[in-house]
């Protein structure tokens, strides 16, 4: 099995963001960055598939990220989890159009003759939720999106997708593209040995071929603040007051 996992470097969300003076980016000073949540699940799922093969050493997990040189840190992290090698598609300016990102990623993926290509369901920052499916269309490969379970069985992908109040069981032949939802696998923590090994694993840097964007960012803003919370009482005696407020003030009852 040759598996590619597309990973994005994103800021830690556990902060109060500020908008940069340009108005089209967040102020990145002081922020911590890591692999996007769903991409971490995808790396873990890929490693588990490799480990399940009769001869794991014959399989390969390649991680690919498009971005400036700082993404090398994210690629190294994925290699410290166990990915075998990495490719940076070097591009310094932020790209927002998922079609442009997908095209640049697809050009690289085409060269790799992968059996399985894994994306996150969405990047946790810009959240386009579309890079994987668009890349799959460009590669003319079948794609199953937002899967919470994955099994590779006899040259086939067998997957489960959560719907609103239901789920679907889906199959498609390999080679295929999948996008990963939570629930599939919790990412492992890199071991010290893994971290040491990752330093020696190959990381190839290539220029990304990013076409002009037709989905362009005009501005970023912070959403309006919620009014400060209010505690209306203690215990079950507070229920009548709550019901009154829901009726008269919030008008939701």
């Amino acid at each position, binding site marked *: 099995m040759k598996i590619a996992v597309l990973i994005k470097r994103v800021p830690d969300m556990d902060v109060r963001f500020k908008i940069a003076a340009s108005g089209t980016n967040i102020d990145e000073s002081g922020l911590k960055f890591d692999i996007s949540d769903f991409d971490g699940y995808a790396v873990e799922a890929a490693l588990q598939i490799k480990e399940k093969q009769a001869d794991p050493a014959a399989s390969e997990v390649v991680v690919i990220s498009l971005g400036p040189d700082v993404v090398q840190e994210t690629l190294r992290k994925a290699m410290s989890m166990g990915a075998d090698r990495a490719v940076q598609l070097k591009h310094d300016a932020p790209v927002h159009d998922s079609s442009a990102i997908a095209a640049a990623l697809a050009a690289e993926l085409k060269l790799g003759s992968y059996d399985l290509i894994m994306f996150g369901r969405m990047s946790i920052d810009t959240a386009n939720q579309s890079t994987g499916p668009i890349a799959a269309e460009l590669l003319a490969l079948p794609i199953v999106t937002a899967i919470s379970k994955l099994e590779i069985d006899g040259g086939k992908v067998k997957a489960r997708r959560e719907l609103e109040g239901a789920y*679907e069981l889906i199959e498609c032949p390999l080679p295929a593209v999948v996008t990963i939802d939570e629930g599939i696998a919790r990412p492992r923590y890199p071991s010290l040995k893994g971290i040491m090994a990752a330093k020696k694993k190959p990381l190839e840097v290539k220029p990304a071929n990013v076409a002009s964007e037709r989905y362009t960012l005009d501005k970023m803003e912070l*959403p309006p603040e919620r009014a400060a919370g209010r505690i209306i009482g203690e215990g079950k005696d507070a*229920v009548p007051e709550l019901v009154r407020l829901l009726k008269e003030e919030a008008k939701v009852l």
Partner: protein
Amino acid sequence: MASNIFAFAESRGGELRRAALEAVTAARGVADATGGQVHAMLAGDAGIGAHAAKLGAAGADVVLVLENPAFGNYNPEALAATIAARLSTGGYRAAFFVSSAQGRDLAPRVAAKCALPLAVDVTEFTVGGDSATVKHPGYTGKVIQSFTLKSATAILSLRPGAVLPKENAKAGTIEQISSIIDPRSSRVVVTETVKGTGAKLDLGEAPVIVSGGRGLKEASNFKLVEDLAAAFGNAAVGATRAVTDEGWRPHSDQIGQTGRLVSPQLYIACGISGAIQHLAGMRTSKTIVAINKDKEAPIFKIADYGIVGDCLEILPVLTAAVKEAKKGA
């Protein structure tokens, strides 16, 4: 000349989804402002066309009906190919989808096939002559991003609930269409759609969500949450990751950064601490109520109304009071 508006009318298992009416209502709004007709497309097993009248009532001038047993389960490849062929015949200023599970899968396939720009989870939009502008929350809802789509046809996938379905009756003339590819040749096959055992109302659709956290102590206590939801009558049940990890509720009930993003009129958080990853999924709710025994719990910082106390004791009293209030209403 691009003047008509396309709306994808989502269905599942022969039932029309609320998303269908949201897409048609959005398309109607644009058509009323800029002219042109609304073409809604409905696909499913034989009999799906029976829902066409509802789409007409929501503002569809034409309902494109595709009836074929191979569309009984979601058939992404044949559906995307058929929609793309339709959009490529030209004449569409915009195509509306809703970012439901199905819409999130379908819209990017269509956008790629047509080489058109796409915006997802759209909360606000304007459609102009040769471009469209949208707002789309990112960074787990902490940043609102504004984008321009530079194209005569824009593909817009709306955040569920961003547009409320409205009646605006139009002809809803039925036009039978067929799949552009052999639908049995699809490589991606949904072998089964399995209904959950959960409440009838979906989290994305319910005006009220009653959500439970680890503070409920055990799976069986979710009965108290379900009872309160039932008392409202228009409520769905949600959960935190602590709860779905425990297996007390299915993952599909999880609200938050890695679960569902919801913004109901009323969100009641029971025994939920208010971790940042949970808040990411529900902070845009209109009114938030929190019940937690720890008065320092972060959930109280964003709750419009907080009660400090044991939710196991408070929930039954609240359920009774809501039932009483509903009776009087």
